[in-house]
């Protein structure tokens, strides 16, 4: 019972982080701000939800699989966000540059 409560707290926290990410993606206008929100919250939300699942399932072979999923997500998702942002920075239009928060290229 206690384990269920702890796991549900983790999973609800993860869902909250993902909801904040979805809200931020629609709230912000500029792509770098949006990518910032999406990339950060992806890593955090995945961690929280997977830790919640690990606690819920107990220690077994599935825990190792969850750890592998977490490893793959943490390896791929930041790299993908980095490449998207890099593509935006290298191809951005000079005329639209009044709402930047990044300096230089």
């Amino acid at each position, binding site marked *: 019972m206690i384990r269920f409560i702890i796991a549900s707290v983790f999973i609800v926290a993860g869902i909250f982080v993902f909801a904040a990410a979805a809200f931020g993606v629609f709230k912000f206008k500029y792509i770098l701000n949006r990518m910032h929100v999406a990339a950060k919250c992806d890593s955090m939300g995945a961690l929280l939800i997977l830790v919640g699942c690990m606690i819920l399932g107990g220690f077994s072979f599935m825990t190792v699989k969850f750890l592998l999923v977490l490893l793959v997500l943490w*390896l*791929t998702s930041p790299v993908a966000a980095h*490449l998207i942002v890099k593509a935006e920075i290298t191809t951005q239009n000079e005329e639209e540059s009044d709402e930047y928060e990044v300096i230089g290229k």
Partner: protein
Amino acid sequence: MNNTNQNNTQKSGVHPKKPWDIFADWVNGEEPEDKMEKSEQYAVPQETHELHENISAQTVLHSESEHESHEKGHFLLKEYLTKFYKMYFGLSLIVGCVVVGILIYAVCTLPGYGLAENPTNNEVAQKYLEEGLEDTGAVNSVAGMILDYRAFDTFGESTVLFVAVAAVIMLMKRSMNKKNEARERLVAHEITIDKKDPNLVLKYSAVVLVPLTILFGIYVVLNGHISPGGGFSGGAIIGAGLMLYALAFGHDKISKVIHYRSFTMITGCALLTYAGCKAYSFYTGANHIGGGIPKGVPGAILSGGFILPLNICVGIIVALTMYGFYSLFSKGDL
């Protein structure tokens, strides 16, 4: 239908062209002649026609229009669009109601959900589930279904992929004479980009991810008959790994292994192996000879008769097709 249209145009004399001709002209890039008449239907003043001419002139970059008339035309375009949208709203409501009515009528005539006499409730699904393990020797009954009972269907799917990649090669591949020159130019371009921006994040992550991805894909292909997976999913994973390698380290490195010759050879051989295996089992099965292929112990890696080699063939075709599409569309060569 066409006949009545023709009669109408002849009677009214407004549309000298058939609708099909206007459409063909529009496809070929010409402005339709009767745009003025259409705009008159919406009771828009004569200046709209000039506006149309302005817009069309600007779209073909003649830039003959004056700035003043353009602003005036912009206002008129707004008026025109508001009128159009009012009509659009009513029409979309009518069309939507008609479509919804047709769909509801169609749903009313469907047979009830879960009735025993429905055509989906036949003995085939039950036979596959109950006797599949015995017949095919595959623990994963999906693999037993698509690669044993319905292997001919899967052969068609693999052929579709092969034909698709052949068509893309025909359309996109650079000609043989210009090949070396274009290739050298591309390699030089890649090297300059690489010196300017080595993209170390992608390279270091690819060093970890590419071997793991390809290894996992091979695992999924080889375990297709004893766990969820199979040739299509495993081949897609291997193809993704190959694409990631090409993205991170450039086409030049991967094309030392997968070039046009080896690509066509491997894909063709995989498809021919599939065809040969299934031809053998179809021939022996249809003539009640009994193929003599051992089924093996269910659950072992060497079980299920021809399912394992067929999975490997399908995996090779899918992986190379995915990589081939990526390479042909990004580089224009394999």
